């Protein structure tokens, strides 16, 4: 393939990519998933607390994640996302949730139900609990009812076959004795067994509000967490605030882009206008990539992500600048426009590669090591670097080489240069 054909091919590839990108990302507010800090909702990081009895292993975390997932499903949150973070944490994101407190309570409760023997009462009348007779692992489902006489809300639980048998044994052996129903170490009630219960069910009574009873039901039905999870980070964002932030973010990106464009045109004249095209291609491919990743559920645009995008606008302009400067310099040194364009852009891409790689490595370290929202910043920064190099090699370089062979020699002043001969 001769160089001309190669140039045409490079431009064709870019045109196709830009077309694909627009097809993917338009309209951007629907095609690019918005992160929680933008669309509003609840985002929590739950961290497993290791104790001497329960070690935080992968297996334990898998079970904990499954239970958290089940509880989230019951909260009725659509489009919830649950991810493992590091070795001991789970990130839960619930977009558009209205009642953060209920969700927090349902997620953070361990939900360990125990039926224990009672060995008497202390001075205040509180039962002193003894051995664990049975745990909540046999519960199949739970329902709520209201005691018609006291008006108290009760949680009725049903056991599976094995639980039913165990429960029958316990109640048969302890008729007339007190037993305690303990949830996460707190005695909920300590009834006296009236008669053997063989139907595989029991009632938990306590001073529950309707919300608390509903949470208890969720927690009992989804099972106890194998390990205590504590909130490490919780963020509740109102949708209004999020949309305000998005508007400010888009304004910042747009202003950054516009000012860079003005500066490029003022300083580099026609080349500056060429850099507008490069920036437009860069922006299109970036949005296209974000839309594609969004459609796979691998990306959600957060505010730190917007910061990363804004920053890469400068990066994209930088690689154009390096090429223009090197080209002009080689022309000054007496090379023909044609060969200056070829070797100049090649040298400049080498420099860009060095500089971009450094930024990429910093971003990669940040992405790998950091926890929390900052990773969104690292991610967009890495994407920006990759797209910048693609655009520089396929688009900007090709155009410079093509212009150097056609337009530049005729009107060098337009490109901020004198003719090659006069400058030699």
């Amino acid at each position: 393939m001769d160089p001309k054909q190669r140039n045409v091919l490079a431009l064709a590839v870019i045109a196709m990519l830009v077309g694909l990108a627009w097809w993917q990302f338009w309209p951007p507010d629907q095609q690019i998933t918005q992160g929680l800090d933008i669309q509003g909702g609840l985002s929590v990081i739950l961290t497993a607390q290791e104790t001497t009895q329960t070690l935080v292993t992968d297996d334990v975390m898998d079970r904990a994640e499954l239970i958290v997932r089940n509880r989230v499903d019951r909260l009725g949150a659509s489009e919830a996302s649950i991810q493992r973070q590091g070795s001991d944490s789970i990130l839960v994101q619930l977009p558009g949730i209205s009642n953060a407190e209920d969700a927090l309570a349902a997620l953070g409760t361990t939900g360990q139900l125990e039926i224990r023997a009672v060995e008497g009462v202390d001075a205040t009348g509180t039962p002193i609990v003894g051995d664990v007779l049975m745990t909540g692992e046999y519960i199949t489902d739970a329902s709520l009812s209201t005691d018609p006489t006291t008006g108290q809300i009760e949680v009725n639980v049903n056991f599976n076959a094995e639980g039913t048998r165990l429960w029958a044994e316990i109640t048969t052996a302890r008729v007339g004795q007190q037993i305690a129903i303990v949830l996460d170490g707190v005695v909920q009630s300590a009834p006296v067994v009236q008669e053997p219960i063989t139907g595989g069910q029991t009632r938990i009574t306590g001073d529950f509000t309707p919300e608390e009873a509903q949470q208890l039901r969720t927690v009992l039905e989804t099972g106890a967490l194998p390990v205590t999870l504590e909130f490490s980070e919780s963020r509740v964002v109102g949708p209004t605030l999020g949309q305000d932030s998005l508007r400010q973010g888009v304004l910042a990106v747009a202003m950054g882009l516009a000012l860079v464009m003005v500066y490029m045109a003022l300083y580099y004249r026609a080349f500056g206008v060429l850099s507008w095209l490069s920036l437009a291609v860069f922006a299109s491919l970036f949005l296209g990539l974000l839309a594609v990743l969004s459609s796979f559920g691998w990306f959600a645009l957060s505010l730190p992500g917007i910061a990363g995008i804004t920053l890469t606008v400068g990066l994209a302009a930088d690689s154009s600048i390096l090429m223009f400067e090197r080209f002009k310099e080689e022309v000054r040194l007496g090379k023909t426009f044609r060969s200056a364009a070829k070797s100049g852009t090649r040298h400049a891409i080498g420099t860009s590669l060095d500089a971009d790689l450094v930024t990429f490595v910093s971003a990669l370290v940040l992405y790998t090591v950091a926890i929390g929202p900052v990773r969104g910043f690292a991610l967009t920064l890495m994407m920006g670097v990759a797209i910048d190099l693609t655009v520089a090699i396929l688009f900007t370089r090709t155009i410079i080489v093509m212009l150097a062979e056609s337009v530049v020699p005729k009107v060098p002043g337009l490109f901020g240069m004198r003719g090659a001969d006069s400058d030699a």
Partner: protein
Amino acid sequence: MRRIKVDFMGFRWWFLGFSALLMIVSAGAMGIRGLQFGIEFQGGTVVSFSEAEGVALADMRSSFESHGVASPQVQSTEDGGFIVRTTESDPDAANETYRAVVEELGLPADAGDVTTIGPGWGRNITNAALLALTLSVAAILLYTSLRFEYKMAGTAVVALVHDVVLTLGVYALVGREVTPNTIAAVLTFMGYSLYDTIVVFHRIRENSQRLVKQTFMSMANDSINQVLMRSINTSITSLIPPLAMLLFGGETLKDFAFALVIGLLSGVYSSVGVASPIYAMWKEREPKFQALKKRYQQAS
């Protein structure tokens, strides 16, 4: 064609002296005033209200206090909102307080953003930040050592440390909070600062291969001048977007932008005023370049 020639290397002791002064002031600011770390590092709650029309700062404070929050830190933002910091590390309680405050002040329930960080999490965040900084510097050192020579790598890192210390010094001076976003911004401008240094070093290396009738110092000075316009231009285009974020962005973007703007400015300066002179002075001690220096010192 614009041809600028500035005798940067002639001013090298001024640059180095100025930088030394900046370092002393920065270290002093950090030592005396200390850095203020965000709740991400120590646990607690931040409530931000985007807008709170008709609510006075004192009302906001007393409303939090009346709902059981001891000594909340209340700060108003430029856009007419508030940022309230408390030591509450239980998200349930923090959100309950938020709801009560919003109701009492008659604000819409979705006007705010409640972030709570648990007490143990800060250690993780701090460790991650330190690890990221260490790994980044190590990676940069390794990369520049492989790509260039160790003297270039060493001086490039000196310039980076200069930029980081200066930025943190400014944070200490103005009392701005250091957050994980600040750390991310620091990691990023380190890359950019290195970019400028690399551009100069690239040129010095290229020129040193055909070094004749000139001292290393004056060749280095020529190299800086040759790449000066592109250094200035790439720096300006790199600076514009963070400036736009600082002017138009919300709190999160400003968080990134503040450190970036200082770091980028420092980076432009340090590649010319710190990295290049130290490198050139180091190189001039090599016998080969010492000979050149003896012969051409007068001529240059």
